[in-house]
């Protein structure tokens, strides 16, 4: 029997010297229930997000269905990442030795402040001061640098960081925050984007709202920067321990520009991005593109190993970042969240995310993965991060699509328990927040359906027995009374089946949900 996050078990990991949590853009500053309300009222946002998630979801289903060995690939991906986490010090050392051997320089950063300081120092040493009196760097989309707030920090240090990914450029020029990790500007429509470009690109002239024209404007706007800027900052999708290679997966070619043309390349990568061997790419280069953009392969993927003589940047740095990852690793019931390869599939199937969008989660990491990763990296006590694990109906769709099989619902339940222990003992003011969430859920028939489809999961958690305690805020209520066991299926589901619209046939054995495709809502 796997651990299923039953509430009120004593937590095993409280040691006297807790590992420090992360800093930066990984905090929810208002409780999710409250902030999600504001976003729910934004109809444009809901339409755009709904359109995006359903489109990407369909594309993903199609390309995943093309592979008969998809489940075996997921299993291999999950196993490999678990193995990396268990042996992380060794793989980091092996990576370091190989990367350094090839002329790369490694820096270690305990938290966001330290990483920002290291990057700033490198930029100051390698990027010239321009006529404007400031320095410039070009950037390729990187969640790690978004997490540490690098651009904002650099700005205060006299450095302008130019985002080069089209969506990131739209977000940056619009003075905005990303709302989706894959399509960060999905909350903007073409008219808004044209207006932003016309206002913020001095040389753009008059533009139409045709995406082809808008992409062309971005190309012209950035090309000179690509060809002349001396320092680039990137993230990394993979670090390969046995070769010391780094990899970036992208679409537009802005990644290749940043990784190839500047003299100095600074990469910021979390400790968890390692793969043991180059051979493991045979799995991850299948899992990631299909789960992410729903393509068989993304247009461009680049790998480099330290310095390649006569090819690309000759001054190559890597900042290896902790910033709360070790804290997440210390939670044995939550550490698989670090296996995440940031594909965003879980967001696109999440009924809560689909309605609130990414901004409601506060953190760089939105959606189901954000609801577990942010509190794991900071601790549930930090700001309102304890409210994030409630941003879910536990329907299990995220687990079904996750290419590395992170059991997000299980970790959500576990973190709700942590939240109760840490923040609501025995009853707390956040009852209000939870009730707000409940009324939102119940005021809409569709949402209610989404929530009820979580019942098989809950049934698996409890084994159908009488329930003596519930996670999260409901725990305070069940502490004084018992409620009957959950039915295997909700009335709505039974009704739908009797009408001949059968669901996938899963009734909650162990995982509480069926594997494979065709199960997406």
């Amino acid at each position, binding site marked *: 029997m796997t651990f299923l996050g039953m509430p009120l078990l004593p937590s095993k990991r409280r040691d006297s010297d807790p590992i420090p949590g992360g800093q930066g853009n990984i905090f929810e500053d208002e409780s999710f229930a409250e902030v999600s309300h504001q976003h729910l009222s934004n109809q444009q946002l809901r339409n755009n997000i709904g359109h995006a998630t359903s489109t990407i979801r369909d594309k993903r289903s199609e390309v995943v269905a093309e592979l008969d060995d998809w489940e075996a690939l997921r299993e*291999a991906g999950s196993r490999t990442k678990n193995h990396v986490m268990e042996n992380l010090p060794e*793989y980091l050392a092996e990576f370091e030795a190989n990367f350094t051997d090839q002329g790369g320089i490694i820096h270690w950063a305990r938290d966001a402040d330290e990483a920002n300081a290291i990057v700033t120092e490198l930029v100051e040493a390698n990027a010239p001061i321009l006529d404007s009196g400031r320095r410039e760097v070009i950037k390729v989309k990187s969640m790690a640098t978004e997490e540490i707030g690098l651009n904002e920090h650099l700005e205060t240090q006299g450095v302008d960081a130019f985002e080069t990914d089209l969506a990131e450029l739209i977000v940056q020029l619009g003075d905005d925050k990303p709302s989706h990790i894959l399509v960060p500007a999905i909350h903007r429509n073409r008219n808004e984007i044209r207006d932003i470009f016309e206002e913020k690109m001095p040389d753009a002239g008059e533009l139409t709202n045709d995406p082809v024209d808008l992409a062309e404007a971005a190309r012209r706007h950035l090309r000179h920067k690509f060809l002349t800027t001396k320092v680039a900052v990137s993230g990394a999708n993979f670090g390969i321990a046995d070769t010391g290679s780094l990899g970036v997966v992208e679409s537009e070619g802005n990644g290749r520009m940043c990784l190839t043309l500047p003299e100095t390349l600074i990469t910021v990568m979390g400790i968890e991005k390692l793969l043991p061997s180059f051979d493991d790419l045979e799995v991850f280069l299948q899992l990631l593109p299909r789960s992410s953009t729903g393509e068989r392969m993304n247009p461009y993927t680049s790998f480099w190993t330290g310095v*390649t003589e006569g090819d690309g940047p000759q001054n190559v740095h890597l900042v290896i970042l902790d910033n709360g990852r070790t804290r997440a690793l210390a939670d044995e019931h939550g550490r698989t969240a670090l296996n995440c390869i940031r594909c965003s599939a879980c967001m696109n199937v999440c009924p809560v995310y689909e309605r609130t969008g990414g901004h409601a989660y506060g953190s760089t990491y939105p959606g189901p993965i954000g609801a577990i990763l942010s509190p794991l990296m900071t601790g549930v006590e930090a700001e309102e991060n304890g409210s994030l694990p409630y941003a879910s109906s536990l329907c299990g769709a995220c687990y079904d699509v996750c290419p590395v099989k992170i059991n997000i619902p299980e970790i959500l339940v576990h973190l709700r328990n942590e939240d109760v222990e840490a923040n609501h003992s025995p009853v707390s003011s956040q009852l209000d927040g939870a009730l707000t969430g409940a009324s939102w859920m119940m005021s809409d028939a569709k949402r209610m359906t989404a929530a009820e489809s979580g019942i098989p999961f809950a049934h698996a958690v409890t084994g159908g027995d009488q329930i003596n305690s519930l996670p999260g805020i409901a725990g305070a209520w069940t502490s004084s009374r018992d409620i009957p066991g959950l039915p295997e299926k909700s009335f709505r589901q039974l009704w739908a089946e009797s009408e001949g619209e059968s669901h996938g046939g899963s009734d909650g054995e162990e995982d509480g949900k069926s594997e494979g495709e065709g199960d997406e809502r």
Partner: protein
Amino acid sequence: MTDTAREEILGRINQALGRRGGGEYVSSSSGTVPAGSPTGGEGHSSAAEAPHAQPGAPAAGGGTVDQSADYFRTGTHEGEELIELLVDRLEDYKANVHRVSGDPAATIAGLIESGSAIVVPRGLDDSWLQDFTGEVSVDAPGQELSVPELDAQAAVVTASAVAIAQTGTIVLDGSPECGRRAITLVPDHHVCVVRVADIVDIVPEGVARLRPSAALTFISGPSATSDIELKRVEGVHGPRTLDVVIVDT
């Protein structure tokens, strides 16, 4: 400063994993080493390149990795079927595909406006350009074209290391006939020659043929974005035209 950070982060990881003496880092050369490639890795000598790897050694965290992976390592397409699959997948991602048996020179010349300036890597087969009339710059160590010079080229012609049919992916590996990365990036038109012998069916077969420490670029169609209302637009920063010439010799 960062040395302390290194020790502290490794110490935190050991503590997080519940290893003895958290804070003390167990050197990977002292016998506590990760297992080799969890996915087997036959056909590679990757372990030999990694000074610290001792394949088969027990994993420090107690988690040994199942060496038998049950996903597919080889595909089922062969011969003409394999080539057709590649063509189909390349076209699906908006590459232009041309098939030639024998000498590709005429086909290549037909793809580039005569009289224009092109760049090629030093190892490119000379005969491929014999029908092209225009200015050819050879990019070689010590005679690299500058970025503005590359920007002035109408096209680049290269070979390729591997092509993966199932995903429509071509891999460049920095070899003398593929060239350094910048030459296939800055010009707006890439003519890429794929030899039939270099076509494999699925991703694992492609990965197995690569030199892991090379600077690698995987290309699947011309650059593209779907960032504006999810409408796919081909051609953003990379070459906007990708011509693939498949040569059966």
